């Protein structure tokens, strides 16, 4: 009896998740009247704006990951090594982006970095790109920090540092050649999640008026019928890919730890 109920609940839940996925896939194939075809995908891939916005978001994601790693790895390392008393403060800050909605953060950016401010970032395209990258780095901060901090927990930071120092390594060498390779799996896991977040992000890019993938999808959705579900299928595949790579990285980490 219990098992029947459990199966019922589980299958109904699965149905709820599967139907929209089936719906979007089916709809995306219906562009040509009467037969299933990949016309909608051809239209999407044939649109230069698709490649332009996708490439833009990809570049921004790469920049975000670099900023995130350069910011988070040394900080998390330093907190573990020398500043355990700063841990509650740093952890609180890294949780803030989950507390303050993204739309409020970007609202603050627009008012704080406008052309008449001390740092007029929104005055130029490059400046706005930098601001958007920082915004994305802020959104990804909670995930990146937690991932790297968990990675650092599995290695003996103090001993590694002393060993490197006794061989004459400076701080940059220690971070780049000792610590980073040891937490690479955690960094990758955070990086793939950052990629998934940045590629689909809409609010910040739209409000800062940058030609990113999220606003492009929204615009297409408002004007076309068959391309949007094709885009949804593509976006779902990308999200799935990012999460798959993330799991792969974690599995790789478990394997490594088991060996050690």
């Amino acid at each position: 009896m219990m098992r029947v109920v459990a199966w019922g609940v589980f299958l109904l839940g699965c149905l709820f998740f599967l139907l929209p996925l089936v719906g979007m896939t089916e709809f995306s194939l219906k562009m040509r009247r009467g037969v299933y075809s990949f016309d909608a995908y051809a239209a999407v891939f044939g649109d230069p704006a698709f490649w332009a916005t996708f490439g833009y978001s990809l570049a921004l994601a790469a920049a975000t990951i670099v900023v995130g790693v350069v910011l988070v790895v040394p900080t998390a390392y330093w907190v573990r090594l020398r500043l355990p008393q700063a841990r509650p403060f740093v952890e609180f800050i890294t949780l803030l982006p989950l507390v303050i909605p993204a739309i409020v953060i970007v609202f603050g950016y627009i008012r704080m970095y406008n052309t008449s401010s001390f740092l007029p970032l929104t005055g130029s395209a490059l400046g706005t790109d930098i601001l958007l990258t920082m915004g994305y780095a802020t959104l990804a901060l909670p995930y990146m920090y937690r991932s790297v901090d968990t990675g650092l927990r599995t290695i003996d930071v103090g001993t590694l540092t002393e060993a490197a120092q006794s061989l004459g390594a400076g701080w940059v060498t220690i971070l780049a050649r000792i610590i980073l390779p040891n937490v690479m799996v955690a960094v990758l896991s955070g990086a793939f999640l950052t990629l998934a977040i940045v590629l689909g992000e809409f609010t910040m890019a739209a409000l800062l008026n940058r030609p990113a993938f999220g606003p492009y999808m929204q615009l297409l959705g408002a004007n076309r019928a068959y391309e949007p579900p094709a885009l949804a299928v593509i976006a779902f595949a990308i999200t799935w890919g990012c999460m798959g790579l993330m799991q792969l990285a974690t599995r790789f980490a478990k394997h490594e730890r088991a060996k050690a």
Partner: protein
Amino acid sequence: MPTEPIRRAPRRFPLHWLGILPFAIFATLFLILPTMRIVLGAFQTPDGGFTLQNMLDLNTDSIRAAYWTSIKLSFYTAALGCAVGFAMAAAVVFGGLPKGVRSPLLTFSGVASNFAGVPLAFAFIATIGPVGLITVWLRTEFGINLRAYGFNLLSFWGLVITYLFFQIPLMILIITPALDGLKREWREAAAVLGATGVQYWRMVALPILFPSILGTFALLFANAFGAVATAFALTGPQLNIVPIKLFAQIRGDVLGNPNLGYALAFGMILITAGANLLYIWLRVRSERWLK
């Protein structure tokens, strides 16, 4: 030599803090100051004086309705997300389902909880929109016209259904480890003392799980409250909920008063911060038992 810097550390105390200076600068410039700007702006007149007028001005029909719709939307999606997510997680953990379904469900939940925003809206439009798969199927096969029954995807309940697609998986992801934490011994101990299954759940399992469930509810609430993209892609700028209103305000000052926009954003921060603090506090409490 190698241990010397560490031994000398306490004497150079202030220099230590330089290590997190880049992080502190980043957080100040791109997180704290922008937020402070909004919070302060909510209590300022256009020429910079202190006022509570903006807060009072929030009390108009349109803004009150927006907050109320947003709160209802967040409440329903969080409550339904918790209920369905809990049921699915419990089915997988206790229901005697084959072990093979657990890992795919968790992986899928990880993907689905991140599959929010614009593409999610497209998926639901293609499924239960005016010419969506299910809508057309019901019409041609059974002669059921959803629209005639008053269902419209581009409405409050349409939004609830769409939000559930990322709310349920989030609940599954958070509550499954908590369900795993329920020890077999507790159930056996209860059984030895003569408790029925219902009594065990009512008097042992649910009280232990309660902080986790309520905490996740708060998290889901904040999650729905701050979401912009899904609602915007689904209904455009018309639907009167707080994030959409704020979006329109940032784009073109639709309220006709920039400081009222700050007050609107400040109200959002208060609600999401309150919900998140509740989540963090309850999480700490629940970890006492579920270690």
